[in-house]
């Protein structure tokens, strides 16, 4: 068999917000650069585990509508994770309905058509071979707002090429039966400015429904539905932010900080989403109802251990 020289995907349709991601870059908050990285860590981990890749291998993250990619080169393997609808269009035009968490092989001129995520936001495409990418500060993670990361800090665009370093790995067609459970609550710990809010606001926060708005992206998620009354001050002296902080600006509508958040901010912090619930939070689509439930630090730490254990169990179930 002759070996093709260049291995690449041609992007026939880029999708809405398709970027290269890994686990992100650390220790740069103090100069204004957030961690970034994948929005749904478990699906990222599973995508690489299914292909027996190293854990932090870069993947393609897409939101809502994903890319349509035409492959050029020698046989490679891929997997898609998340609640994703996609097709493989073979060179002979045969269409195969794709199943997430199943490894597939593709050959020269085959296409992967990632049509949409179902009732969720993010999905992941991982390959058996390395994508050729530029790292900055030990990460390829793309932060489109700061224009930092691979692909010059931009999302992917039509007609671009994704170049692949071909190692000719032979991969088992592994699969995993996994349906992500929906959760009733997003669990939070009270944050440093909890007492800036009126008794009524505190009660409303834990007992009423909020709605995820369209103004949500990799930086943050804006909520509406309940106004949280601040009785002390709607501004604090600017201070550091972390992923999961729920800030409340003067209009009373909460905003939750996500992967690409600004590194400092001056709005009071009412609560902080626990680490175990980041993936599920990130996957909530605009219009979804969101309810908060209070837990303490100890419970949050236990829930995170449980979250990790669940991920490990899923990896062990790969057949």
């Amino acid at each position, binding site marked *: 068999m002759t070996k093709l020289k260049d291995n690449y995907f041609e992007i026939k349709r880029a999708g809405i917000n398709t970027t290269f991601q890994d686990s992100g870059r650390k*220790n740069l908050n103090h100069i*204004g*650069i957030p961690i970034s990285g994948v929005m749904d860590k478990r699906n990222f981990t599973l995508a690489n585990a299914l292909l027996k890749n190293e854990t932090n291998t870069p993947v393609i993250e897409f939101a809502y509508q994903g890319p349509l990619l035409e492959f050029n080169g020698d046989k490679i393997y891929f997997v898609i994770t998340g609640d994703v609808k996609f097709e493989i269009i073979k060179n002979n035009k045969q269409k195969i309905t794709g199943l997430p968490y199943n490894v597939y092989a593709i050959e020269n001129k085959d296409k992967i058509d990632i049509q949409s995520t179902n009732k969720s936001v993010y999905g992941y495409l991982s390959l058996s071979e390395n994508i050729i990418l530029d790292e900055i500060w030990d990460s390829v993670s793309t932060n489109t707002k700061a224009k930092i990361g691979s692909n010059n800090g931009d999302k992917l665009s039509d007609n671009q090429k994704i170049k692949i370093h071909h190692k000719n790995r032979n991969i088992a067609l592994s699969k995993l039966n996994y349906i992500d459970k929906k959760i009733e609550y997003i669990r939070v710990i009270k944050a440093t400015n909890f007492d800036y809010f009126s008794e009524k606001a505190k009660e409303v926060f834990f007992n009423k429904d909020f709605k995820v708005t369209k103004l949500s992206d990799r930086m943050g998620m804006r909520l509406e539905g309940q106004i949280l009354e601040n009785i002390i001050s709607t501004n604090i002296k600017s201070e550091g932010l972390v992923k999961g902080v729920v800030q409340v600006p003067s209009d009373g509508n909460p905003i939750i900080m996500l992967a690409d958040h600004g590194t400092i901010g001056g709005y009071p912090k009412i609560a902080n989403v626990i680490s175990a619930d980041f993936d599920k939070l990130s996957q909530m689509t605009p219009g979804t109802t969101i309810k908060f439930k209070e837990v303490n630090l100890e419970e949050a730490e236990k829930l995170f251990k449980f979250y990790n254990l669940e991920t490990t169990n899923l990896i062990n179930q790969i057949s």
Partner: protein
Amino acid sequence: MIKNILNLGDAAVYCDFGKDVNQEINTNVINYFKNIKDKKINGIINVTPSYNKLIVSFDLEVTSYSKVKKIIENLELEKKFENENKLVEIPVCCDENFKLDHDRLEKKLGIPFDKVLEIFFRKEYFCYMTGFIAGMPFLGDTSEKLRTKRLETPRVKVPKGSIGLTEQFCNIYTYESPGGWNIIGNTPLEIFNKERRSDPALINPGDKVKFNKITQEEYDKIKR
């Protein structure tokens, strides 16, 4: 010194240095920041200083709040790092195209714009923190004669390089960004450049900054 240590969520330690904003407290924050960074503590993924707070976030898979809190409480601040602080000179052009809030400042402060600039350029400023957007320095303190609030309606786009004033602080927009500070001029210097990998920000917390007034001609020359 740290007045209070709290958890922020399950993966960050929130060190509170009190309510006041001044150089002494901030120098203390920066000293902690540099000492923690210097120790390269296992599991710590970000140390974020601000005026009077320090947030230390960590990887919950590796360490925990109680462990990191203990490390901070027992931290010996042996190193001073003061020799790392430098004086950075920033050229600023305040000509027609750049002084976006000329009229507003004259009205709010009740002094002619020439006088605003004279007072502004006279002082040396202290960098309290950088962030919000990559490399944006928060500098202070400005003269009491120059203190006013943010714009009631922030600009959707503040040009890159803009020098802004609000309350006792001034800053530099390192990227084009939304913002509400009162703009008096613009610097042709690249304040943040990711190509300078090991030291991308020209101004870092603890540095001193001196602004120098330049003409449009000089501005164009540096920009080229």
